[in-house]
């Protein structure tokens, strides 16, 4: 058997090869130092990644979600989400640094700061800015994913896969 493609090694480490294929690949690894090293390297990385635990059990979105469902239809609802979103994005790097500093990386997620939303809305962009910046055509899409319902698995037209 010839040397394994790296993607096969990825599938092997991920435990998703069919039994017969896995047997065949493992036979090759036993005889090929290059592929065996590639496998061990990836398995080591895979294991190392397991050090990052995220525990969101303290957070319950149920009330937040159901409150939004029961409130009267608000045409600016999507805009509100994205304005909040945009405000939040500015804090990403700081949040990572802070989470790391506080050791949150290994533990529980923190419940959302209830005061945050008001602060974000204070600096929310205008509706015109939002329409331009966020491509609000998306808001009228009939699908939650932005793609036709029914789980079409083909890449959407123009979808890039790099980098």
């Amino acid at each position, binding site marked *: 058997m010839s040397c394994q493609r790296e*993607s096969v090694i990825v599938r092997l480490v991920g435990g998703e090869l069919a039994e017969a294929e896995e047997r065949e690949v493992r036979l090759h690894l036993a005889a090929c130092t290059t592929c065996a090293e590639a496998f061990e390297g990836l398995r080591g990385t895979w294991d190392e990644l397991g050090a990052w635990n995220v525990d969101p059990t303290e957070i319950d979105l149920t009330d937040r979600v159901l409150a939004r469902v029961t409130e009267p239809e608000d045409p600016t609802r999507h805009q509100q989400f994205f304005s909040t*979103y945009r405000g939040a994005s500015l804090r990403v790097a700081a949040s990572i640094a802070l989470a790391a500093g506080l050791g949150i990386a290994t533990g529980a997620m923190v419940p959302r700061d209830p005061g945050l939303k008001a602060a974000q809305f204070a600096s929310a962009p205008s509706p015109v800015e939002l329409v331009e910046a966020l491509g609000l055509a998306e808001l009228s899409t009939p699908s939650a994913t932005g793609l036709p319902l029914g*789980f079409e698995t083909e890449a959407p037209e123009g979808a890039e896969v790099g980098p």
Partner: protein
Amino acid sequence: MSLNNTLETVSDTQLMVRLATDDQTALGTLVQRHQRRVLEVAYRMTGDHALAQDIGQEAFLRVWRSAKRYKPTAQFTTWLYRIIVNLCLDEFKRRKPITGDVPDGADACSYQAETVVEARERATAVQLAIAALPDRQRVAVVLHRFSGLTVRTTADATGWSESAVESLLVRAYAALRQSLSEQEKK
């Protein structure tokens, strides 16, 4: 037994059928059942707790809005992941790349057992290495390594081809290996 308890044994697809008839307890059950995976994946992709919760809320609202048109041609969770992936990709388009230096937490941690500090440092190293990946590689690796999706289901959840996902994963794991070994040397 409450209605919610009764619904705990109902499948996701059946809950979506109920939700399509405006049964909001079905949505509550879906939130309870899936919020952990939603929050976890959104946090790993964005590195932001508040943003992860906003994405989680919006994802379930999209589930609710789509219930009447929902067709169960794949697993509900795959569809849910796709909603989250799209929300995260939208967010990535709008913001600068996640970077960030490892803060000096040595003083704050000095009283703790060495093993706890080491574990925390390893977790931080992983988080930073993941954050430094290009967006699509990060999305693929979060789904594949942390959410337990296969290459095939990662492709379904992202809308990318299997070969594209393979290529993203090969590059992502190679970058992570390098990044983690560099951080170890520091």
